[in-house]
């Protein structure tokens, strides 16, 4: 006898010869007393009202890269000067659509990864495998709780969130079809929606891998992992992994550990897979070669004996590049098969032989366990062939290098195709005339090894090799330490910092995340970040930014990870992990609302985002964003009320959200305490903004940490940093500082009197000098009970009445 049950609670007496298949058991909700909020599993329109609130203030800004569209066969259409195409769409709306598509791609990448992860892990560990993130993490999945309205307890539970995400992604992608949205605001709302999906799927992927692979669980003092070119022991076979999905490369560690042969190999990686290898390996069994811009550096150095690629951000000419150096490639992800034959049915020996002998330049092997065996054997086989004598100097001889340099005619074709307009011509000319390579060597610090210049060069000069060889010693001896990604923030850490963040005594949380398309040398990133660590902000990082920081040393030879602790606390720097670990940064902001302020999370997104926007002084920072994922991550943060500062290349995402401080009618909230709708200071005054220089980045980050809810002491501390940093880097007080002053208590102590004089003489404020008080001038007075919200329903919930008009 067999029967199938749908959903529900069942009691079955006297089970005999009965087989039961249960659709899904609804668990008893005995512990979760939190009431369900208004928007569990929100559909594509559920949060539109919140989005429109944001978009009304933070007006979308478009900077077209093309003014034409060729998405359908009615085109191409000239949309310049905001004209409309044959389908009726105008340039701004077309750009909004394009950004929505970019965010869809980003969310789909993390989502594809998450889906793959949970399916694989459920198969391996079972759907009941518990989600246990350690004793210090009770709020296991803050984003999923807030968005989906569930508390996932097992790997199987994550499927519910995943299914919602897949459905919503499909809906948003649908909306980008020709003939759908007419308003750019609706596209922006959809971009925000799918970017919130992105945050959910990042959380799914990272939680799943943390619990199943036993990665660090919210540990502040994770080990330090060797980072940089110089950490590679060239006397061992070298296995290099690249990409974002550790599922395929982890078995390499497992296999070698099982064989007791970890010591015999060098395993290193590029980009997020290497973060996650360090998280699963922990004990230094794998190293970090460098960020994604190191791909061609690494390959052309000839150091790898085998490359294992998975997915996302990897060069689309990886096979070509590996082939040119005789490095066998194992492609593993179905998202990047690279035209290679699928050898999953082949026996291990046959695959190894094909790759070591060079019969095949690469294979597609989507079977993780086999990858675990094949990669080491191939590396060993290749190593045996060269016996450790790799051709790893970019050029066989110095003469070859100079021959290449001497070919340059200074035509500058390379300069006009380089994303940074690097002056390769000048470097070459200087070397030709003086035999000094220093100008070329300097370019190495900024070159992202994209290869565009080489294709533009009429003399076919191997420009990347010239640049790398010119800085050979420094590049090859670059060593450093990155703290292994720690995953979530502890509830206890939030308990300690929640109040000082919301009150403003901890001046802000700076999250440096993302890719490597930096506007200048890598070391600027450290300068920017360290300014905030020293000023006792909370600094967190992840992805390529984290591994860059792991390579930049100070005069004492220390990276920030060696110098500062890894806690989520003032004056520390925390590495969360890979791209998908960015979810824990959003998660930390959400947890502050819940743990410190007791705001319910369950299906309650708008209230939480409103809380974060008004109270949590967190700012995202991406000095060199380039991927679609970065677009989705940033937009997801924006919907959650977290502003993001990007480097100048970030303007090529085409869209920003920039408010206008001079329009007072845009800056208002409902105050639940006074029951009034009131004007407030424009803080923060943008949700997505680009900066050009490190000086500008530092000042903007400090500036965007200000929140309406700051206490006087908090505002005073935030303004102190903002004003000091502005004086240091801009040479003057910032233009807009008075708009953040609510009373004399907000003023930085050291400059109080001086600032009051300026307010009086330059801004016409009235000061009572006997009492040393501001009498007239501020946008609003300070009120300790100020309780701001932008959301009518939230107002009603806490005020018990309809909001004032």
């Amino acid at each position, binding site marked *: 006898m067999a029967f199938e049950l749908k959903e529900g609670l069942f009691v079955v007496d006297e089970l005999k010869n009965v087989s039961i298949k249960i659709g899904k058991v609804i668990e008893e909700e005995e512990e979760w007393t939190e009431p369900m909020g208004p928007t569990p599993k929100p559909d594509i329109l559920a949060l539109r009202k919140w989005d429109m609130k944001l978009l009304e203030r933070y*007006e979308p*800004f*478009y*900077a*077209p*890269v*093309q*003014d*034409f569209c060729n998405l359908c066969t009615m085109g191409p259409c*000239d949309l*310049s*000067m*905001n004209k409309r195409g044959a389908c009726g769409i105008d*340039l*701004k709306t077309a750009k909004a659509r394009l950004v929505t598509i970019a965010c869809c791609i980003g969310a789909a990448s993390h989502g594809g990864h998450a889906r793959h992860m949970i399916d694989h892990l459920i198969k391996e560990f079972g759907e009941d495998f518990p989600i246990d993130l350690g004793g210090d993490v009770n709020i296991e999945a803050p984003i999923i709780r807030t968005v989906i309205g569930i508390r996932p307890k097992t790997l199987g539970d994550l499927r519910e969130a995943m299914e919602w995400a897949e459905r919503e992604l499909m809906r948003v992608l649908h909306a980008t079809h020709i003939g759908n949205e007419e308003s750019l605001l609706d596209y922006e709302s959809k971009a925000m929606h799918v970017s919130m999906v992105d945050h959910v799927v990042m959380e799914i992927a990272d939680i799943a891998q943390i619990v199943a692979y036993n990665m660090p669980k919210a540990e502040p003092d994770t080990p330090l992992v060797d980072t940089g070119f110089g950490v590679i022991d060239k006397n061992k076979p070298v296995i290099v992994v690249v990409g974002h999905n550790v599922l395929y490369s982890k078995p390499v560690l497992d296999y070698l550990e099982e064989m007791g042969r970890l010591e015999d190999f060098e395993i290193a990686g590029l980009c997020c897979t290497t973060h996650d290898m360090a998280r699963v390996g922990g004990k230094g069994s794998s190293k970090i070669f460098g960020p994604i811009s190191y791909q061609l550096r690494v390959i052309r150095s000839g150091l790898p004996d085998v490359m294992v690629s998975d997915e996302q951000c990897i060069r689309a000419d990886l096979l070509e590049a590996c082939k040119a150096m005789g490095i066998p490639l194992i492609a593993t992800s179905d998202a990047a098969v690279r035209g290679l034959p699928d050898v999953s049915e082949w026996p291990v020996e046959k695959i190894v032989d094909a790759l070591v002998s060079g019969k095949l330049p690469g294979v597609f092997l989507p079977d993780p366990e086999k990858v675990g065996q094949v990669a080491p054997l191939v590396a060993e086989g290749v190593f045996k062939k060269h016996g450790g004598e790799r051709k790893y100097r970019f050029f066989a001889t110095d003469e070859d290098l100079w021959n290449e340099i001497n070919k340059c005619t*200074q035509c*500058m074709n390379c*300069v*006009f*195709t380089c*994303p*940074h*307009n690097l*002056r390769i*011509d000048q470097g070459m000319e200087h070397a030709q005339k003086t035999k000094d390579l220093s100008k070329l060597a300097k370019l190495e610090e900024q070159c992202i090894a994209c290869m565009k210049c080489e294709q*533009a060069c009429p003399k076919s000069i191997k420009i990347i090799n010239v640049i790398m060889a010119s800085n050979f010693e420094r590049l090859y001896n670059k060593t450093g330490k990155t703290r292994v990604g720690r995953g979530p923030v502890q509830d206890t850490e939030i308990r300690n910092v929640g109040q000082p963040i919301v009150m403003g005594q901890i001046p802000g949380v700076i999250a440096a995340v993302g890719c490597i398309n930096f*506007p200048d040398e890598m070391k600027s990133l450290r300068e920017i970040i360290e300014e905030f660590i020293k000023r006792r902000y909370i600094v967190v990082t992840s992805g390529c930014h984290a591994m860059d920081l792991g390579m930049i040393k100070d005069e004492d030879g220390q990276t920030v990870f060696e110098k500062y602790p890894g806690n989520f606390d003032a004056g520390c720097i925390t590495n969360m992990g890979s791209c998908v670990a960015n979810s824990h940064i959003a998660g930390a902001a959400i947890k502050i609302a819940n743990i410190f302020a007791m705001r319910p999370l369950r299906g309650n997104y708008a209230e939480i985002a409103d809380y974060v926007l008004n109270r949590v002084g967190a700012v995202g920072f991406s000095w060199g964003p380039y991927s679609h994922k970065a677009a989705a991550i940033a937009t997801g943060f924006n919907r959650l009320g977290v502003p993001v500062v990007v480097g*100048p*290349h970030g*303007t*090529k995402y*085409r869209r*920003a959200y*920039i408010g*206008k401080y*001079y329009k007072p009618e845009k800056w208002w909230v409902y105050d639940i305490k006074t029951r009034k709708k009131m004007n407030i200071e424009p803080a923060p005054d*943008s949700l997505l*903004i*680009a*900066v*050009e*220089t490190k*000086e*500008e980045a530092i*000042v*903007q980050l400090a*500036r965007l940490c200000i929140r309406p809810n700051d206490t006087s002491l908090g505002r005073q501390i935030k303004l102190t940093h903002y004003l000091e940093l*502005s004086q240091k*880097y*801009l*040479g*003057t007080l*910032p*233009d*807009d500082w008075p708009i953040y002053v609510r009373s004399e208590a907000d003023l930085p102590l050291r400059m109080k009197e001086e600032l009051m004089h300026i307010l009086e003489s330059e801004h016409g404020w009235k000061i009572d000098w006997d009492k040393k008080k501001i009498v007239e001038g501020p946008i609003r007075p300070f009120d300790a009970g100020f309780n701001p919200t932008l959301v009518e329903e939230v107002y009603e919930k806490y005020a018990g009445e309809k909001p004032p008009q």
Partner: protein
Amino acid sequence: MAVSKEDKYPIARRYQIADIQVSREATAVKPNVVANLIKKAKRPVLVTGGKLLREEKLVEVAEKFYSKGIPIIATGGSSRVLIEKGIKPQSSVFTLHYVTQFMLDEDWKGFDGKGPYDVVIFLGFLPYYLSRMLSALKHFSKMTTISIDEFYQPHAKFSFTNLTANKELYYRMLDEVVNGI
């Protein structure tokens, strides 16, 4: 020294070969044309970028603009070196991204509150960053934009030609602009 008629100007080669749009490309202009455009403007303003922190000559040029009564909006941290020279920029803290957003707003009265700027001159920017802002201004505003950077900026209304290979000529052209206003 002024740029003489005999000087051959390099061709207007886009700073980035692939930054192409179908609508008009900037008219490559000689310094005297730039000077005339500025002289005829009702509300001209010079916007300076981060390159001023690394290139002394650009600071000198901005200083001369200022001494001739052209106000300056300083971005990218350039205010520091300008203030050291006694200049008071109209704004120091807003990034070019902000400034462009404000300029796109026809209701904006400028940082001094005296009404919208009509002619905007850009000096000292990362070319790809300036290009995006010029593109926004081209498509969504009526503003006259002039780039006097060393890279030819296709999306400005007027731009210096490409002078990256000839710094000397570039500097002479800058001098000629400031001498002509």
